[in-house]
């Protein structure tokens, strides 16, 4: 327990000292918010059913933060472990792999949640963010989105050897997904052919779930999203458990 606490604390500090993870998780979403919010404002629009441009964007940006943590932070952290030989060094101590993995999940979860809270706070203070869902539902959807995407991140980590490859693969998956899933650019503005492809991207399910619940839709109408994300989570954990290698 002492080891888990200490490890979590150290990992959190290391996360904040790593400029890339820090920037994409905590700063980049705020930049998007201020740039697009500055351009379009948050006045209610009929197109968005009486909500403003910022209101629609915040749940999408939240999905983007989840994608950052899963597709960039996790693979880079695990690949760095491998590359530096620190996993072999840990193997010579009483520390268990489970403790290490738990510490990582805790830190990434906290940072992801922090990214979302900063975003919401800024949107609320600067643009008067509107919200018509339930906090509990959004919280649950956030946890589900995290779990399903983190497990995807760990599956990726199992296949990647070096931090450099992790970064490239992560980016190659991350950018198409945040551009096409509606996490940054509203899906409605895209050509129909692209839309019909984009809606099957894993991140699109997170975006739809968060957006739906944000504007008060009930869970029943979002069952397809829930089922896909839960399956991703279960499948990802099983695949990680089966294929994950420490060295």
């Amino acid at each position, binding site marked *: 327990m002492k080891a888990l606490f200490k*490890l979590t604390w150290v990992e959190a500090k290391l996360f904040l000292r790593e400029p890339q993870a820090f920037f994409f998780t905590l700063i980049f979403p705020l930049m998007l918010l201020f740039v697009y919010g500055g351009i379009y404002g948050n006045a209610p629009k009929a197109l968005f059913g009486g909500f403003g441009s910022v209101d629609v964007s915040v749940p999408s940006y939240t999905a983007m933060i989840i994608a950052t943590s899963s597709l960039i932070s996790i693979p880079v952290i695990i690949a760095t472990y491998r590359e530096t030989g620190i996993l072999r060094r840990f193997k*010579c*101590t009483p520390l268990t792999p489970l403790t290490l993995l738990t510490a990582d999940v805790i830190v990434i979860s906290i940072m992801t949640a922090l990214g979302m809270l900063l975003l919401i706070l800024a949107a609320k203070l600067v643009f008067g963010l509107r919200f018509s869902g339930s906090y509990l539902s959004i919280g649950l959807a956030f946890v589900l989105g995290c779990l399903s995407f983190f497990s995807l991140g760990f599956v990726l980590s199992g296949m990647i050897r070096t931090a450099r490859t992790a970064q490239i693969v992560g980016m190659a998956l991350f950018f198409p997904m945040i551009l096409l899933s509606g996490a940054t650019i509203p899906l409605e503005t895209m050509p129909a052919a692209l839309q019909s492809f984009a809606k099957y991207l894993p991140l699109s399910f997170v975006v739809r779930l968060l957006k739906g619940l944000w504007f008060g839709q009930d869970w029943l109408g979002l069952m397809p999203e829930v089922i896909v994300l839960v399956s991703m989570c279960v499948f990802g954990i099983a695949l990680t458990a089966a294929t994950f290698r420490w060295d």
Partner: protein
Amino acid sequence: MVRIMNQDIAIEVEDLQKSYGKTKAVDHLSFSVRKGEIFGLVGPNGAGKTTTLECLEGLRRQDGGVIRVLGFNPQKDRRALNTHIGVQLQDSSLAHQIRVGEAMDLFASFYKHHQTPSELLEQLGLSYQRDTAFAKLSGGQKQRLFIALALIHDPELLFLDELTTGLDPQGRRLIWERIRDINGRGKTIVLSTHFMEEAERLCDRVLIIDHGKTVALDSTENLIRELTVDHKVIFSVNGRFDVSLFQGLTSVTGVDVFKDRVTVSGRSEHLVADVVKVLINEKSRYFDLHVQQPNLEDVFLKLTGKEIRD
């Protein structure tokens, strides 16, 4: 878990074998390490030193043979063994941004009983680096940090793999002093090195290996003494020198003059005294006199027919 304890023996290895594909990394090695000694695994790169250490540490499963480390079977009892051994791995690293003090506290938290991190840092001369990021440390400081991390739980037995590779001579000397200190506090140390000088300066006994096989196993003094290699007394003279002066001496086996440089070879322990006596009697003006003794390097050359740095 069966722990077979022996009062005086820290490690017993019998007929250890490990292959990677068709390459035999370790080929029927047997040796034991006594408690309290500094034991060296010596050989060129690729001789099988690291593989042997990793089998002892429980990081690798051997293909054959029996290993007992402090009475434990490293494969079956790795968890229990971990609290008794300290390990420094070759090519290991830490997160670039972690600070020295943080790394020490972190590793301390893995163990029920541990030493005070600040005292250990002091012992290893790292007190001023407490807040320095790992990436900012010099090569020698990194290695001293790895030793400190390996000692954090006060283990009985310490494994050091190629500790001073890549360090400058000064950094190497500093590490040697620390290792002697640690051994002086009663810890058994097993180290691997391809520096013969390092083995000679530090180790009580060495196992010289090549291609995974034992070349020699003894104390460094014995290995050198048993080697039938000449000692040499070398000095310079002004002008001509009469070589016949040494011809009557039983301790001398040969004299070689090159320009103003004279080399007298012989095997007896009286060689130096005999040569100097002649020089004084003859009132010869000599300078820059020094003695060249055989070292482990010569032992290796003699036993394997090749230089260790090949």
